[in-house]
């Protein structure tokens, strides 16, 4: 009967109950989403390789390094391979509003340095032997319906061809990644193709290299190696900063600001807003039922039962909201993963994220129920019976 009474009390104001359950549902979904995003960022950073270092300008990532640095860095003891990375920043001719990353890389060392990149279609040889060849991620290929051997026209923004035409890259391989630190939405092409075009006047744009990626020999002290590389260019012409891949990724994310902190802040704000909304609902419910509580006390029900009914009512409303939120998460899992995995490869709605969302919803329900529950429990029977609605 007390359970029936609680259910009937909740259903006595169906619109209010529905709105409260709806707000908890939205909160559970948002918290799960934000937690999944933060966890995705962390996962991406965690999966970074321990035996890769990145050399960038000490001034900024946006300042290119001279090409002449490659040989000097390659000669440092412990460097197994070196690979240039240059941000291309072009736009796909058929989807100028869309965005995906393109990088010019050293075709001969790139695939060797990234064993997590697996060729799904085509061949590594096809990519390495042809000057205009490129390798694209399987998600990117699926997005645009690209096939092997297809020519992809990319309009340069930083690097523009002098004949005014777009750059043309031929897809010779499609890759998939075994780690979330490498996304499946990027195009890699020959850096040499870019350099030669610049040198021969076929294109214009800055000459240089965005970053040098170093693959480190096993059992090499990466910190010592990084210091050695930095020391090489201490007197210029361009000072460098060498970091581990994880640190590089972390700095890259922090260029946008404290993204995890911001996401946590948004999550906390959502949580507080919903907490106050549910608390307000429960306080209203408690006040409306003060006289009923007095009647129950007069009939012989103890303070614990009378107060506990409001606590369970709070838990019931938030529990229903959590269930609805979990259902929404399951429903939107696939589309959200498809949208966010391009920018956040580690993103996934984990059970842990969902449990966190549901757990916080139940906590909100508990606290929101305890506040009016304590109030009615503390009132004497006479005080409760005197209460006017």
């Amino acid at each position, binding site marked *: *009967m*007390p359970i*029936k*009474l609680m259910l*009937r*009390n909740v*259903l*006595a104001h169906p619109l209010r109950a529905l709105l409260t359950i709806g707000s908890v549902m939205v909160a559970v979904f948002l918290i799960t989403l934000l937690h999944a995003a933060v966890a995705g960022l962390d996962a991406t950073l965690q999966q970074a390789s321990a035996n890769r270092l990145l050399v960038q300008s000490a001034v900024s990532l946006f300042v290119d390094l001279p090409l002449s640095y490659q040989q000097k860095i390659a000669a440092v003891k412990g460097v197994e391979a070196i690979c240039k990375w240059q941000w291309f920043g072009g736009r796909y001719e058929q989807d100028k509003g869309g965005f995906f990353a393109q990088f010019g890389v050293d075709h001969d060392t790139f695939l060797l340095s990234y064993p997590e990149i697996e060729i799904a279609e085509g061949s590594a040889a096809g990519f390495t032997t042809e000057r205009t060849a490129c390798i694209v991620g399987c998600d990117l290929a699926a997005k645009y319906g690209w096939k092997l051997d297809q020519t992809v026209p990319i309009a340069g923004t930083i690097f523009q061809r002098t004949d005014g035409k777009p750059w043309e890259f031929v897809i010779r391989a499609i890759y998939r990644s075994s780690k979330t630190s490498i996304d499946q939405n990027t195009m890699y092409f020959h850096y040499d193709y870019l350099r030669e075009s610049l040198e021969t006047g076929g294109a214009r744009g800055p000459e240089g290299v965005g970053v040098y990626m170093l693959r480190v020999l096993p059992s090499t002290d990466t910190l010592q190696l990084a210091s050695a590389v930095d020391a090489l260019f201490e007197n210029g012409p361009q000072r460098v900063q060498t970091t581990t891949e994880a640190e590089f990724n972390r700095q890259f994310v922090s260029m946008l600001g404290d993204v995890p902190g911001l996401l946590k802040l948004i999550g906390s704000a959502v949580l507080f807003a919903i907490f106050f909304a549910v608390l307000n609902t429960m306080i209203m419910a408690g006040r409306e039922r003060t*006289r*009923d509580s*007095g*009647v*129950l*006390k*007069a*009939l*012989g*029900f*103890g*303070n614990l039962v009378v107060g506990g009914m409001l606590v369970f009512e709070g838990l019931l409303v938030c529990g229903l909201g959590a269930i609805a939120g979990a259902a929404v998460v399951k429903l939107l899992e696939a589309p959200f993963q498809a949208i966010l995995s391009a920018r956040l490869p580690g993103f996934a709605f984990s059970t842990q994220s969902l449990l966190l969302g549901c757990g916080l919803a139940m906590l909100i329900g508990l606290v929101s129920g305890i506040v009016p529950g304590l109030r009615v429990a503390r009132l*004497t*029977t*006479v005080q409760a*019976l005197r209460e006017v609605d």
Partner: protein
Amino acid sequence: MNQPADIEIRHVTKCYSRGGQTLRVLDELDMQMAGGTFYALMGPSGSGKTTLLNLVGGLDTADQGEVVIAGENIAQLSSGQLARWRANNVGFVFQGFNLLPVLTARENVELPLLLAPINRRQRRAQAERALELVGLSDRMNHKPSELSGGQEQRVAIARAIATAPSVILADEPTGDLDRVTADQVLELLQLLNQQLKKTILMVTHDPRAASFADKIVHLDKGKLGRIDDNPTRPATAGR
């Protein structure tokens, strides 16, 4: 407790603080009420009628003195013990009926039975018997909002007698009812007193309502004025 319960009030004092002032609502009150008798409690506003009713019902505690019901001094009980005592020994009928609006008539009557050591079927049967007794068998599944004021009060009386308490306390039970309906409710209380030997203590301002009682207790400024026998008590309507 099936035997008629005597009620003894011994030197009871109850004070309230209002606006920084202490009001002595009951002032060393002494009185005795015989078990199985229907008492009407009358007096001007502020004379302590409802306070006395609350003390006898264990809804409130006296600052001083003893409230002895069927030999048990309930002034010594803790709030938890008082709650259990109320569940077993007292039935309440309030002026505003105080039925839970989300429950049906039968569910309202079943409420106090939740605290009794009986199963669901017994609980339901007992609630239905109480509703039959007050003439509401055909309204068992109606919610309070679907009942008239008189029917609501009869449901409240059914709830008060569901656990077979020996004492029924009624606070202005006819205050919100028209005269015909009020008479029906009062006849019902009279019937419970005469046939089931319930001790009934009813607070009222209405001399007509008081005329249904065996004895009329007059309170004045927290003290006992007098207790009158009621020779004009009407005969119980046959049911």
